[in-house]
């Protein structure tokens, strides 16, 4: 049974996490704003104006949800993977391990920290986007639901990566070689309907495609993917990764001798 003390502990972990990424805001909050501004200028305005409409909306409007989602995914993941690995590396994770914080609350503390950075970055990029495109929102609930679940999923993924990581190289392998290619091929910049049938089917195996399209649905009201299928898939991934992360933390894998 979890009492008030456990929630104070959760608040402490979350406060520590939030203060960490605010302390290094030049590394955490500023880069997405600059990078995404470049995306909007280059792909949205310069190149986008020559591409024309995509699924009945301007190209810049089409790519806006994907670009926001891309920054949410990257920041949720990188916040937890670097924070948890650095706690392992400096052994400050022992502060929590010797204390009576329940494993579930350590897990939640790190994930909520990652989600908070992911959502904050999403808001920053949305503000940047609003300078370039006059977008409208089709469904606020779906938008909020999808972005929060996706952020949670990648924050958990970052935690699992950090638990297994033994050196700093190990925390950059997944983002560089898996996450970035899957994001770029996940329908951020194009509709999969433009692809030959074979590659359309291959693309359906990319989980990020579902998240980007579900998010795009929240903005624009259309998607390459069935929105219900997308939400079920994201939920299944979250349950699987959360269970794995909880098991690993409870067993002390990578953090206890």
């Amino acid at each position, binding site marked *: 049974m979890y009492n008030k003390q456990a929630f104070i502990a959760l608040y*402490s972990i979350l406060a520590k996490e939030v203060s*960490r990424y605010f302390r290094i805001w030049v590394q955490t909050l500023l880069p997405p704003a600059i990078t995404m501004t470049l995306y909007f200028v280059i792909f949205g305005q310069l190149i986008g104006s020559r591409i024309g409409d995509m699924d009945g909306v301007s190209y810049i409007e089409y790519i806006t949800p994907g670009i926001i989602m891309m920054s949410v995914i990257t920041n949720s993941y990188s916040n937890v993977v670097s924070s948890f690995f650095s706690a392992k590396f400096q*052994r400050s994770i*022992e*502060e929590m391990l*010797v204390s*009576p914080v329940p494993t579930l609350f350590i897990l939640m503390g790190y994930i909520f920290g990652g989600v908070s950075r992911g959502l904050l970055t999403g808001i920053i990029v949305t503000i940047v986007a609003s300078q370039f495109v006059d977008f409208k929102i089709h469904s606020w609930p779906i938008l909020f639901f999808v972005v929060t679940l996706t952020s949670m999923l990648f924050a958990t993924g970052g935690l699992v990566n950090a638990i297994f990581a033994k050196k700093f190289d190990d925390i950059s392998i997944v983002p560089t070689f898996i996450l970035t290619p899957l994001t770029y091929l996940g329908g951020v910049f194009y509709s999969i309907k433009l692809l030959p049938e074979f590659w359309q089917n291959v693309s359906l195996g990319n989980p990020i495609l579902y998240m980007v399209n579900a998010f795009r649905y929240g903005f624009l009201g259309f998607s390459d993917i069935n929105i219900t299928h997308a939400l079920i898939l994201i939920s299944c991934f979250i349950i699987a990764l959360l269970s794995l992360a909880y098991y690993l933390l409870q067993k002390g894998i990578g953090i206890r001798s």
Partner: protein
Amino acid sequence: MSTKAIEIHDLKKIYGGQFTALKGISFDVEEGDFLALLGPNGAGKSTTIGVICSLVNKTSGSVKVFGHSIDNELEAAKRCIGLVPQEFNFSQFETCLQIVVNQAGYYGVPRKLATQRAEVVLKQLSLWEKRNTPSRELSGGMKRRLMIARALIHEPKILILDEPTAGVDIEIRRSMWEFLTELNKQGTTIVLTTHYLEEAEQLCRRIAIINQGEIIENTSMKDIISRLDVETFVLDIDSMPEKFPEINSVTFRQRDDTSIEVDIPKGISLNLIFSWLSEQNIQVSSMRNKSNRLEELFVKLTENAA
């Protein structure tokens, strides 16, 4: 009947199925005690502490902290313990105040109360002026004191210190001794591992010696000191005698041109030595113990066990 602060029974730890760090050790620590856990490098001291504080998963055996088993009442057991580990293990980027207040939070201490307690404990350890300094900018001695402050913030019943004075200068070491002695007087049980045997002799009332994963001695400091049967003194003299006399079982050795070593069994008066030296017209300019008394016994015990 006194309460047991720690009860360890048949504790075993095998790393990776190959290296046996603890071979089924058993010992108790009474509430209010000040125990020194001694042993050479790799003897199993840090593993024992790691298991008590749940940083190391035990292979078998049982550990209870104030009656709470770490197997099924882990959270209650953890609340009783404050740990000062051997290595610095706080975030290099956080300030002293953040480190201490966050640690209180992990124990469920509300933020406001944690901040009040942090002020008290940081002042006690002379760190209040450095409260807003990132921990990486502190000196080695300050970092050690910060770890003590962090360990005390939730007011534990037992404080476990793994070589707390390693690498700190004599002045800071002595001020830490005073602090720990005072803390123990106020009722906190203290378990200390150290390589400075003088430290154990000065501070602790009980001593447990661990060697190659086994407890080879567990007794009072008074008892173990009483077992010392020979003390060695170094005497600085103005001239060297031609030969040394045979006085009871006293053994003389020449160290260099101006000093000798004398092994004196327990019960033999030092006056005998000085009388003989006076007869020889030899002046003694100074005298000192050759080595720490406990160190001699420690070496003897660990050699015998090996």
